[in-house]
């Protein structure tokens, strides 16, 4: 009688174990079926990643957003790209960060307008358990998960080295920089100035900080050249500075007397490269930033280890001579 009861309980236990195994297998198959894509994940269940940039009009940021979109499509992520109307408005960025937190973002890909001004909002996101991936411009926070950006100091040096190469004589340098709170601009300026200073061929460096608009850069350049007409080398540290400076030189007719080393590219600055207002462009890899930013966010959401907490994207120096090389074409002219 006892052994019989024992047998029955053994049967029950074995049956239960088998049932559990079958259950797991069914679950696995269902998941497999779901993940093979025959049944698509509904939009609502896809992880939401907020990408917050500094602008949505500049060529640079359009390229970032298309890179982010490519990664979002590849990893099946619900991605939004937002940027304030003005490249100065870090408060608007902070509002976007908080909106992303309350909208249940699983990760935030962020580019800081203000190194310190955005820190608090980023801190809030991290405290809410949302991993933050920084692209392009850093923020004053040690706990962000990953930084994907150009090595801006090296980018600055790259421009400086080409300036030295093109001008064997004495350099009188003007720097048209944007927001003094932007880490990127400061690092580029630092790199550029360090490279120039190390040569010992520099007479003076004059810096003007403008608001990040074409008009402001134009006026800043005009003012700088009015005050220091002896300037023969000009560094314009972002896309809009490049345009403003370029227009100023064009209007002043100084194409042949002054060399501008500019950052980033758009069709106008590329045209200026051809017409001679701009001597060289340091072109970043915004598409890669956007793509890697969202890819890293996806990895963070899935708990995959990131290859590195700091990823430097490439920079390329584009001048009149190489601008129509096929690989440079592919880099600076967007494929519509």
């Amino acid at each position, binding site marked *: 009688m006892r052994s*019989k009861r024992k*047998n*029955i309980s053994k*049967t029950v236990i*074995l*049956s239960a174990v*088998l*049932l559990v*195994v*079958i259950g797991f*297998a*069914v679950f*696995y*198959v269902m998941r*497999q*079926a779901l993940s*093979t*894509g025959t049944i698509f994940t509904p939009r609502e269940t896809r992880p939401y990643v907020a990408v917050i940039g500094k602008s949505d009009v500049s060529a640079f940021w359009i390229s970032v957003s*298309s*890179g982010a979109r*490519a990664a979002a499509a590849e990893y099946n992520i619900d991605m939004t790209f937002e940027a304030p109307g003005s490249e100065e408005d870090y408060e608007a960025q902070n509002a976007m960060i908080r909106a992303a937190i309350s909208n249940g973002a699983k990760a935030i890909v962020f580019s800081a307008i203000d190194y310190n001004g955005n820190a608090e909002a980023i801190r809030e996101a991290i405290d809410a358990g949302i991993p933050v991936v920084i692209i392009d411009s850093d923020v004053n926070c040690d706990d962000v998960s990953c930084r994907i950006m150009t090595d801006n100091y090296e980018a600055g040096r790259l421009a400086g080295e080409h300036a030295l190469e093109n001008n064997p004589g004495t350099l009188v340098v003007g720097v048209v920089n944007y927001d003094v709170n932007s880490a990127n601009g400061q690092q580029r300026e630092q790199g550029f100035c360090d490279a120039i200073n190390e040569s010992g061929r520099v007479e003076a460096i004059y810096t003007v900080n403008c608001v990040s608009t074409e008009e402001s850069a134009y006026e800043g350049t005009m003012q700088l050249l009015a005050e220091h007409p002896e300037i023969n080398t000009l560094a314009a540290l972002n896309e809009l500075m490049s345009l403003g400076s370029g227009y100023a030189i064009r209007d002043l007719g100084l194409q042949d007397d002054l060399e501008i080393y500019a950052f980033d590219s758009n*069709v*106008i600055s*590329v*045209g200026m490269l*051809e*017409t001679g207002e701009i001597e060289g462009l340091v072109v970043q*890899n915004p*598409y*890669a930033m956007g*793509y*890697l930013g969202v890819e890293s966010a996806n990895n963070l959401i899935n708990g995959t280890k990131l290859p590195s907490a700091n990823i430097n994207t*490439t920079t390329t120096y584009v001048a*009149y001579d190489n601008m*129509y090389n*096929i*690989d440079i*074409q*592919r*880099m600076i*002219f967007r*494929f*519509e």
Partner: protein
Amino acid sequence: MKKAAKVSGISLSSVMTAAVVSIVATAVIIALLIFNTFFRESMDNIAITNSEQSVDQVAGTIYNYIDDMKGVMDSLYEASLRDPDSVEEFIEDIIAIRSDVVMIATYDIHGNNTGVRSNYKVKDLITRNLSYTTVPTESGISISIPHVVSVLENYYPWVVTINKGVNGSFSNASMIAMDVEFSNIAGYIDGVGIGQHGYCFIMDGDGNIIYHPQQQLIYAGLKQENDDINGLPDGTHLQGGIIYTIKTIDNCEWKIVGVTYLDETVNNRVNTMIIISVLILLLVVLLSFISGSLFSRLFTKPVNKLTDAMRTFEGSASKFVFEPVEGVSEVESLSDSFGHLVTRIQELMEEVKAEENTLRKTELKALQAQINPHFLYNTLDSISWMCEEGKNDEAVLMVNALAKLFRISISRGHEIITIDKEIQHAECYLQIQKFRYQNQFDYSFEIEEECKEYFCNKITLQPLIENAIYHGLNMIDEGHIKIRIRSDGDDVVMDVEDNGVGMSEDQIKELFLSDITDKRGIGVKNVNDRIKIYFGDKYGITIRSELDVGTCVSVRIPKITEENKYEK
């Protein structure tokens, strides 16, 4: 039997479970192998066919598009031959109508630009012109790789340039170049999907990528296309689970490469099939397990129970009590049959036992009925001798004693009589013998009154007294026989004690062996046997004897009363 059962300790249900599982497992594995071979093959073929069809379609579409553009070019050339003056208008019309034509430029024999016609503003200063390529072979057509248009102000669309030599047929131009937006082709290529993640891209004859849906990633250094496919001829190639279908477009030097992942299309399904099969297998294991235990409960266990019952029955048939076994109808009928068998055998055994008893009792009765002729003759001789001597009173006493002795001996055929009657019987016998042996011995009774009411076998004491007289007292004078009857717990003990010569161990043994001693009627053995038959082995005769001191023969019987004398 027991050993055999233990050695073959595999139960039927586990054998059944194992059989079912192994059959299903074999079937599933064979099915999987067949599935894997045939299905995989057919899936591979389907994937390859899909890839080939898609690539053919893409190649066809691009062929048509380029053909169309060439047609435009040809009609432009023909128009220039027919009516050189209207060509400018014709070009204007083309640019106006065909939104994908970005620019049409003409070049003289030295390659100098003789005119750029476009809807967009042409740069004031054209430093370089990417749309100009070397003059194609006479009146031939060439198609450039995609490039940006470098002559338009702030507009750098990606185009392919179609060049045609015109031999100065219009405006002294030797070549016409038409820049056609590449985004039409690119958009089309982007939209092509093969399988779930398959795509196709355009490659030139040297393996350089003309257009790739993921070219931004490739240019940004984030992705790479397999370099091994560069040198491959047209057709389908399988490399590392990826199907590459390559087709060269006839009217240009481009190749369409279709990329499909075998893993996704086939492996997923095969894996799903394997998982489903494993599921089925598990389910079968579960079901066969359940059915096995059910089978065991309904069949194996009842059969085992029945086997155990049979083994027990084998061991002790008479005391066995059969409990019917429940199970399937086969087992139940088996159980019923066995039950009947058990009952029948037990009945038969009882019958045999009863018959045996009856037989023995009959034999005993026959023996009892025998009157020892010597005893009767001697007694009658003594009586006649008494009569002769005129001892009438004594003769009367003798005759009375003899008569009483016989009456009690017969007791109307009853085997069991009261101890009181048995004592009378013994007394009669002693009286007769005392007369015959002329008071050579005397005797005494020591009876507990209580014991008289119990019953005993008749003629129990007489053979013992006879034994005492013949073997104990024969040679000596003043012999004394003492008969003592007492109660001992639930038993009654009757002792016949003499003070004679006693018996050796051998003599005692002999007493229990021979049925009838010296033809003197009923012997000690007979008494002992009868007690044991009636009351069981617990009871019977024991003899204590000491040579030259005396012998005590004890009879132990249960206390039999009027009420229970027939039960025994």
